[in-house]
Structures are given as structure tokens and as C-alpha cells.
């Protein structure tokens, strides 16, 4: 009983806010307010407004009156073949590019984790593709994919994989473009995966490998039973970040094609800033946001369940 009373007294004491604390809080709030205001104006208000606009017919340039239409924008998007084509292509691009980046990034990280001459140099230059602007990367690969004089065609002709009269138009179809965009994205973003996983690898205690070796584990068993489980938190972070990034693919596509159905973000941008159908664009943006959030929640839940099971 006495112990309970003491605890309550402690809690009461802990939760009693003194005048001085109020003053400190007030001062802290005063200092924070300008930043909070700017962040609210830049981030919170547009998010809130876009949520409201998604329930309105709000076409900026066609002279039609703005009016509340409930869920009609969402219904029209879900009934739009363009949206589903864009969605399928985005999912395809996201899965292919992120999976390849994870695999390549993992093995690159393993390689750069080893001791060999010039390791620091290679660790430094691997950042270069990642440091390139996405648009510059797009222009670079656009040149590589040019029919005739583009590097890809020249190399394939040189290797006699393409006949002298064969001159494929690599970016000729929107469906095919997704593969070439994925290659460009893998080239650029694999270093990102590598760096995150390399940091994770460096934090794995050496004793675990020593124990595994004493138990007779070879390279693959160490990889399976030590490296991958220990690296899982880094993999999770890298995957979630890349999934979100890849699903928003936009700028590189504008270099390769004028077809907005190559990604949901491209289509949303066109609805918002080419056609100025701001209500429908807001609904589309919210659909994407909710989809990404759902994806992340499911993924984290799955990983947590996996960790709990272990």
C-alpha cells in the first residue's frame, strides 16, 4: 500500500508542471512557431487542400464552375483505363527495378566490405551514378538507346548480336520503355542500396562470423544464417525508401517518352499541370499516397511478424 502511494506521489510529482516549465515551453513554442508555420504552409496545407480538392470538380482552365462532387473523381479514376495502364506499368517498374537494385546492391556491398587494394577508391566512385541528376541520367541513357548511332546499338552490332540491317527502336513502345527505364534506374540507384547495406554490414559483429566458422559454416551458410538476418533492418529501410522512390518515377520518363501512361506520377502531373484538372489530379495523388502507405504498412507488418517468429 505504502509502495503504491509512493508511486502515485512520484507520478503526481512527475506530471505537475511548474510555472518555470510553462515558461520554458512557451519560449520553446515561440522559437518553433516560425518553422512550424513555414512547414505547415509548405507541407501540411497543400496536403490538406489536395484532400479537399479531390472531392471537387476543379478544372482551372476550361471555364466550368468549381463544385463539390463527392467521390466522383475517385470513381472516374478507378474506371479510367489510362490510370490502370499507368498503375500496372508503375508496379512493374517498381518491382523489377527495386528487386534488381537490392540484389546488385547486396553483392556490391559484400564486395566493398572485403579488404582489397583500392577499396576506398571504389567505395568513392560508386556514388557517382547516384549523385547524377535524374534528368541527366535520363539524357545519358536516352543517348545510349538511340537507334543507329546509340551506344547500345553500336555495341550489339559490334558483337554481331544485331545483323547489319537490324536497327531496333529501343524506346519505340511504351510497354518496352519500362524495361529500359528500369535499367537506367538500376544503374543510378544500385549505389544507394550498396551504401545502406554496406553500413549495415559494417555493424555486424565479427564474433558471429567466427562462431559460424567454428560451426563449419561456409560462404553461403554464413550469408544465409548470419549476414542476411543481421542485415534485415538495413534491407527494410533501403527497400521501403526505394519502393517509395520507384513508385513515384516521373522525371526520367519525361526524357524517354511523352506517354503519360508510363507511370501514375506522370499521369498525375499531366492531369495537374498540363490539363489543370486539379480535382481529379488530387484524387489520383491521394490514391497513390494511400497505396504506398498500405504497401509500407503491410511490408513492415510482414517483417515484424518474421522477426517475432525468429
Amino acid at each position, binding site marked *: 500500500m505504502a509502495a503504491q502511494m509512493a508511486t502515485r506521489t512520484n507520478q503526481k510529482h512527475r*506530471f505537475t508542471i511548474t510555472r518555470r516549465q510553462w515558461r520554458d515551453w512557451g519560449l520553446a*513554442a515561440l522559437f518553433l512557431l516560425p518553422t*512550424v*508555420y513555414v512547414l*505547415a*504552409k509548405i507541407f*501540411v*496545407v497543400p496536403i*490538406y*487542400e489536395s484532400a*479537399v*480538392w479531390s472531392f*471537387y470538380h*476543379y*478544372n*482551372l*482552365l*476550361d*471555364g*466550368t*464552375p*468549381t463544385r*463539390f462532387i463527392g467521390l466522383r473523381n475517385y470513381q*472516374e479514376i478507378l474506371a479510367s483505363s489510362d490510370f490502370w495502364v499507368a498503375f500496372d506499368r508503375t508496379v512493374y517498374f517498381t518491382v523489377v527495378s527495386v528487386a534488381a537494385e537490392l540484389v546488385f546492391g547486396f553483392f556490391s556491398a559484400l564486395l566493398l566490405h572485403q579488404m582489397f587494394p583500392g577499396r576506398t577508391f571504389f567505395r568513392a566512385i560508386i556514388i557517382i551514378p547516384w549523385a547524377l541528376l535524374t534528368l541527366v541520367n535520363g539524357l545519358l541513357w536516352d543517348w545510349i*538507346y*538511340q*537507334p*543507329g548511332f546509340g551506344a547500345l546499338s553500336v555495341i550489339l552490332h559490334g558483337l554481331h548480336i544485331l545483323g547489319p540491317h537490324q*536497327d*531496333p*527502336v*529501343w*524506346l*519505340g*513502345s*511504351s510497354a518496352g520503355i519500362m524495361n529500359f527505364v528500369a535499367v537506367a534506374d538500376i544503374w543510378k540507384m544500385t549505389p544507394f542500396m550498396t551504401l545502406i547495406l554496406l553500413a549495415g554490414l559494417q555493424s555486424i559483429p565479427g564474433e558471429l562470423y567466427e562462431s559460424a566458422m567454428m560451426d563449419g559454416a561456409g560462404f553461403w551458410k554464413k550469408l544465409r544464417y548470419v549476414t542476411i538476418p543481421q542485415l534485415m533492418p538495413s534491407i527494410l529501410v533501403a527497400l521501403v525508401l526505394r519502393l517509395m522512390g520507384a513508385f513515384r518515377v516521373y522525371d526520367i520518363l519525361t526524357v524517354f*517518352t*511523352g*506517354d*503519360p*501512361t508510363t507511370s501514375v506520377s506522370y499521369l498525375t502531373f*499531366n492531369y495537374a*499541370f*498540363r*490539363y*489543370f*484538372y*486539379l*480535382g481529379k489530379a488530387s484524387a489520383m495523388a491521394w490514391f497513390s499516397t494511400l497505396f504506398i502507405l498500405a504497401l509500407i504498412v503491410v511490408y513492415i507488418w510482414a517483417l515484424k511478424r518474421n522477426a517475432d517468429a525468429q
Partner: protein
Amino acid sequence: MTRRVTWMAAAAAGLVLTVSGCGGAPPAPGGGNSGGSQKTGANANGLDWNKTSDPSLKGQTITVLWTDTNGPNGPKAKLLKQFTKETGIKVRELGVAYNNLYDKVMTAAMANTSDIDVVEMDTIWAGQYYQGHIAVDLTHVIPKQVQDGFTPSSLGSVTYQGHLMAMPWYSSTKHFYWNNKLLHEADITHPPRTWDEFRQDSLIIQKKLGPKGIYASGWSWKQAESLTCDYVGMVGAFGGQFFDKNGHPAFDKGGGLKALQFMVQLMKDKTVDPASLQWTEQDVLNAFEAGKIAMMSNWEGVFPQVNDPSQSKIVGQADVGLLPGEGNVVSASCTGSEGVAIMQNSKHKEAALAFLKWIGSREYQLAEFQQEGQYPSLKSLYNDPALKKADTSHTLAKIQAQFQYGINRPNAPGYVNWSDTLASALHSALSGQMAPDKALQKAAAKIEQAIQNENS
């Protein structure tokens, strides 16, 4: 305690949202202007053509947003200084690349800012500038006799449903260019006058010069506006139309269908450089000046680059003329004429009008032709000895001839959306993924649906 903190956080968030001016419901379109019809007439806009020399305008500063990537020492910037010298009105130039222009104009309009007074207007934006209340309606501001001084095609390019939305700035269409040397090597004595002739010549050129890696023609048929432009010209040449008299899409039949079938046939003939499906106009020009294609369609301003030995392998070999026609149609070409408009939110409208007046003057239009090769919108200048003297490439008459056969793209507010839909269908057909008739029917149905949505 946790509850109290939650309430405090919620209250703070609410306060911040309120203070941030988050009203929720979207504002009326047009940068805060109330909906309804555009204000028209001199009085409604407070603009008077005869008061552009008013001394009170001296010292005012106007901001002009247009395409100019040459910086403060470029030819346009020098011309602007001349305007300030003559009128006392200062000009702050926002020069951007063409591809950034539309976004910047629309962002300024959405932000309801009065920072920008004068903006460039491409022909396809006239409907949006009117219906979206972006620009001032100049129909009753610029006197009729002044309007009559411009070429009909340049005036039509800045007009939407009878509303003059900008001062005609320059004239532009696509033209037909060919490489005389390559045609001569293929034993072709004159450039084709009809599309049928073009196809026959293309087959001959391909047969004779194909083994050297040369294609008969190259096109800007990337899925983009450049593809729609070429198609619009072809539709005109084959006697088709974009919309019927009731405003319904009509390009999926008659001349419109024939035009696409012809374009697909050229691809099937393998006389078109296949990279055309990935090219815009600049890529086509690059191939042309590299001597890789014998014929092309492109805008004006090609000759300085084509005849520059540091950039071109075909110096002195290129010529220009009318794009081919078909049947009774002598020629048809997509127009690209542009204008300059006054923003609705401008606080210096009269000074901006003085600027527009200057843009439409002989003095400016001649100087711009001399310095940048931009073709005038003023009719009288085409007979002006000073302009003829400035025509160093001796192509003025040929370029001017094509202006007589210009076909405007629809400039209704929904055009950008329709054009994207159409370009997708055209590209599907050209890349062999869809039959021309099916592709056009699909595009027509989608555009019809878009029109209905806009009207509902």
C-alpha cells in the same frame, strides 16, 4: 497528461492551419477572378490603345515572361533596351526555355500573382488563356485597322472563338526541306509536290542511297506534340478535318484516316528512319544536317545551323519549299505562330499594352527578323525592301508561300489533353501496335468523352 498534450497539439495544428490561410475549398478558377464570362472591351479592362504614350507610364516596370535562353546579352535583351529608351517603361525579362514556359505562366496564374505582366502565348493555349481567365481579352482593345495589318494566319493563331487573346508576334508553320545533293544522287530532278510523289521518290532514294545508311526521310514522331503537329498538316493535305461542324471528332474518318494510313505506309516502306519514333524536331534537324536523311519537315530558322560548317555536313546543299499536298490540296502545314498576351493580374496593364504595341510595330518585327530570323506577323513587312535585304538565306518568298497553307490546331481549353490522347493513338499505329482505323477510333472516343466531361 498524454491527453492534455494531444489536445494541445491538436489545438496548435488547428491554429497553424487557420493562420496559414487554409480555407479548404478550392478558389474560383482564374487566379481569384470570379467565374463567368471574360471582361471585354476597352472600358472593362481600363485599357486604351491611344494612351500607351501617356507620360504617366514612364518609369513603370513591366515583367515579360517568354522564350529566351540567350541571357541578358542576347538579341532580345538588346531590343528590350530599345523599348525602354523609346517609352521610358522599364522591362524585366524572364527568359525561359519554351518547354518551361507553359508551367511558369500557369503557376503564376494559380498563385494569383501580379509579378508577371506580359507572357508569350503559343497558338494552342488561346482557349485556356480565355476560359481560364489567364490573359486580358484584347478584341476591343487593339483597333480593328491594326488587327487587319497582320497576316490572317498569325491573327487566327491568337484568336479563340472570336476573342483576340494576344498581339500576333511572329508567323510560323512547318516547311518541307530537302537535300539537293542526295536527291540528285538518286536521280530525282525536283522535290515532290504531292504525298504520292513523295512516297515514290522515297522508295527510289531508299533503293539507291539506303545501302549508304541514308534514309529518304526522318520525322519528329516521338509521342509528343511534334507528332500531333505533323499529323495535323497531313490531315489538311488529305482533305480531312479535326472536328466536324457540330464539334465532334472527325479525324477518325475520311482525310484524317487517310493521313495516318499514309504515315503508317511510309513506315512500312522502310523509307523513314525508324529512329523517327523517338525523335523531336531538333533530332530530325540533327540527322538532316548529318546527311543521314534526304527530306524532312521542320519549322523555320533551320538555315543558320544547316549552313554552319562547324555543325553541319551539308553546307549549301539544303533547300526549302512547300510541303506536298494531295488531290486538290496544293499544300498544308501545321501552324506554330505565337503571340504575346497581358496577364489578367497585371498591375501595369497600360504599360504592358504599350509593350504589345511595340511588339506589333514594323520597327520591332524587322529588327527581330534581322537579329533572330523570326518571321513577321505584319503583312506589310513582306513587301518591305528592308526585310528582303535582311533575308540572307534568300528563302523569304518560299517560307512566306507556306504561310498561305497553314492549318491551325484546335485551340480550345481541352486541346492539351486531346493532343496527348491523339499522339498516343498515332504512335501506337506508327509503331505497328494498332491498326490506324482502330487507333483513331479509340482516340476519337476518348476525346469525345473528355469533351463531355468538360461540359458536364
